[in-house]
């Protein structure tokens, strides 16, 4: 009933309720249709590759059969305790992530963070702090922003958990993980991170935020460094998983 009504109302009515939508109007991130609120139109929302059903208890990827862990997780251990992801990293979705990361479509941080926060809330992680996976300062300069930090900031606002952006830093400028094999990825990020202010995170539970989890090597390296510096446990949440 409500939807029928809003459909009849032209969206210009909406600005009476929300003046900022005048200057920053919302459009569906996929098809560009003007929206009154939200970030995806109904049709496109259905198309999004949500992870549903049975998931791996460690890395959070979707499992077709009823098993508890995916093959990769049974074969190799992770430093992080548990990861959850919202989307499958399909080729369609990857273009959107690409836009989010490189093409200044940083407003996508809002809907993405909303999806992630919802999932984190459901998972009920007992975390003290949120830490985004950092970018090397040079790279951040180049891109203009750290997408993980944007996600972390909005998740923090929704869940009311503080973000620590200056604890974990990236010291080494590494090449992009994209297109590297698993072993090379691990080598690539090895020793790239360090902890600046270990007192702040001492025996705390941390939620790491990143955009994509593929092999998990970045996440592992961050978790390892954090755990080495006295962190009690590391949970992680990513926007999408490539598994």
């Amino acid at each position, binding site marked *: 009933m409500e939807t029928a*009504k809003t459909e*009849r*109302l*032209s*969206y*210009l*009515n*909406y*600005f*009476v309720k929300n003046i*900022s*939508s*005048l*200057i*920053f*109007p*919302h*459009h569906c991130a996929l098809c*560009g249709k*003007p929206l009154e609120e939200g970030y995806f139109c109904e049709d496109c929302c259905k198309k999004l590759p949500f992870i549903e059903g049975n998931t791996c208890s460690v890395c959070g990827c979707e499992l077709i059969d009823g098993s508890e862990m995916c093959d990769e997780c049974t074969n190799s251990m992770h430093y992080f305790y548990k990861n959850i992801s919202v989307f499958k990293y399909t080729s369609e979705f990857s273009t959107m992530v690409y836009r989010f990361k490189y093409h*200044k479509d*940083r*407003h996508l*941080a*809002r809907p993405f963070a909303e999806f992630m926060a919802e999932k984190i809330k459901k998972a009920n992680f007992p975390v003290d702090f949120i830490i985004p996976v950092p970018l090397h300062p040079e790279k951040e300069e180049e891109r203009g*922003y750290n997408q993980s930090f*944007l996600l972390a900031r*909005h998740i923090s606002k929704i869940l009311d958990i503080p973000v620590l952006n200056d604890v974990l830093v990236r010291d080494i400028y590494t090449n992009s993980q994209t297109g590297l094999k698993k072993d090379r990825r691990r080598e690539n990020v090895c020793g790239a991170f360090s902890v600046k202010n270990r007192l702040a995170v001492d025996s705390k539970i941390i939620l790491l935020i990143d955009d994509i989890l593929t092999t998990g090597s970045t996440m592992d390296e961050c978790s390892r460094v954090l755990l080495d510096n006295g962190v009690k446990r590391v949970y992680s949440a990513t926007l999408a998983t490539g598994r």
Partner: protein
Amino acid sequence: MLSVQKYLKNISFEFIYRRPLFYICIAYIAGIVISYTFRPHLIAQIVLFATAVIISLFTYLKRQDITVLILLDVMFFGIFYSMLFFNVNSMYESGREYVLDVMVYDSPMIEDYRTSYIVKPEKGQAILLNVYNSNKIYKYGDTLRIRVKTEIPKGETNPGGFNYRDYLKKKGIYATASISEKDILYIGHKIDIRTPFINSREWIENIINKLYPGKEAAFLNSLIIGDRTDLESDVEDSFINTGIIHALAISGLHVNILLLFIFYVLKLFKLSEVKRNITALSFIGFYTLTVGAMPSVTRAFIMAAVVLIGNTYDEEIDVLSGIALAAFIILFINPLNLFDIGFQLSFGATLAILLIYRKLSGLIPFKGYIADAVSSTISAEIGVLPVSIYYFFRLPVYSLLANLIIVPLIPVIFVLGIISIILGSIFWPMSYIFVFLNTMLIRLSIAITGQISSLPYSAIPMQRPYIAVIAAYYIFVFISLGFIKISYDRYVSACLALFIFLGIYFEPICRNMNITFIDVGQGDSSLIRHGRTKILVDAGGSVKSKGSDFDVGEDVLIPFLLSNHVTSIDVVFVSHTDNDHMGGLLPLIEKMKVKHIFLGEEPENNALFNRLKETARSKNIPISYLKRGDRVSLGKINIQVLNPSENKEDVNNTSLVFKLSYKDADVLYTGDIEMKGEADMLKSDMDLDADILKVAHHGSSTSSTRVFLDKVKPAVSIISVGKNNYGHPDDEVLLRLSEYSRVYRTDNDGAVIINTDGKYIKVKSWSDKYGL
């Protein structure tokens, strides 16, 4: 239910209907235009507006669609709100003396012996005050007691000409006055909210003038603080000719460079994103106010603010909504801004770049910087072409070339300029190397622009496009870009293209004879049109003298002709070689096609005439000399020459005098002839009888004798006169003329337009039309 989308189904202005602010802004602009064109009744408008708001409120409470109602509300608001600006009349009376306590309201403008101030009484409208030969300079905030005789600035005095009154009104000035130092008493000094901005502008200007040599300083002043007063007009002209004048008007380009520069500096301080953006925005805001918040800078500032704020809060950034917001704010501050050239060009170009750029860059086969520059230049050009032709009367042919070469230099000059200002204000020798480099760069860009502008066919003169042609042009652009979807679009666009092409060159044909005595200030000029024949008698004065950039030929006569769709002249009659009759002819024959020039006697050794002769020779324009008894026929117009005779006389008395006849209507053109010449003509016993008399020598007491007027018996006399120190027109002559005829004078009546079918004569004063 009404839904705008439904009605716009065929017009796929997707870019509009996805953006509510765009609708609203267009509705508001429509309101301003309606208000400007129809000048409706204020109370009625307020009632309409209130009714519309109440209806929309009720509809909204009933939870029904109010899209269309909101747009109507905004439109009615626009109508009534802009009337508050349009309907303001001057509180001063013309010619009345006032003693006022005023505050100097802007930095003084100093030109040679004249200093101009904008002064404003505490509660009242501003006055433009010209002080001559004064050695004192008052600053912003000084309060003065002045005794002034105010004058109401003239409105549009020639059809399609410059409207000085509206121009000043836009700046909040409602009267002008000339005053001598004696009538000014200094009272004190006030400091208000604008003081820091004015002071910093003056401070920057002073540093630039101290560091840079004159020409380069003027260039940098226009680039950095938007002050173009010192810029030489031929530099400005060459920038207009090459289509890169936008580089000198502070706009998005400059604001973006400044933003990048500020960000670069702020990086040293390692601020958080929010703090960094706010700091940068405050700097830009300060800069915007310092340079005087012209529409183009304000637009750039608001759009930058939308982008930066949107980025900071991860909002979806929509530049088109940003531009709509900018337009709305600027037009809310003053709806008159809609008619500002800077506003139209700035918004036109930006909008066009936003809409067309991507489509264009897809068509360009190569990529990279040049491709970007080409597509942004072309898209901006597509957007503002009719507007720029409307105001500048020329087609910048080498615009693309100039944009590719000069525009990349502008950011460098700008940043070097800012660095040199900062260093120069600390310790001037530090800035030496930057100043040196920048001076070279500025010289280079002026030289290159000058070169491009002097290439053949660099600026093709164009007549003012008809409104229908402009409309057709934009519809054509919208169809070809796919914003309007219609069936048979190819045929429609082909027809439109043909219409535009013909429309550009179409000159109206006058069925009746039409004579316009043009207001050229002190001087003579009149245009006679019949059928396709165009005759010009005299051309007004002033070939640009040193110290003044104003030139009647270039700034009044040529714009008048082009805005009235006259692109060529068949015959020019020059009564004699005095500047106020021939000066304007030099730029005219240089820029426009003139087929033949007629003079009275060939003068000996007249510098101005020698220049004319030389230009005419290079343009292959024949010059012929007429004497008493000669007859010239131009279509149905016959000309009978009455003077000069064989007798040797002075310049004025050898003026070319002739009777121009169209069927039964006779017009007597007398040049600057004086008593002696009049007597000589009377003696020869020619038929001097005429219906219309162009009064000799601007109504001087030395001409228009009673015996002469007895013979001419005019029904209408026209005095071509402007502000002068000769006492023209003479009161006695005026009285004498009024005994015989109705007297019109171009200084009070503006252009005097005569329309005759050869039997009846209609006379119209252009200023009357505008209620001067």
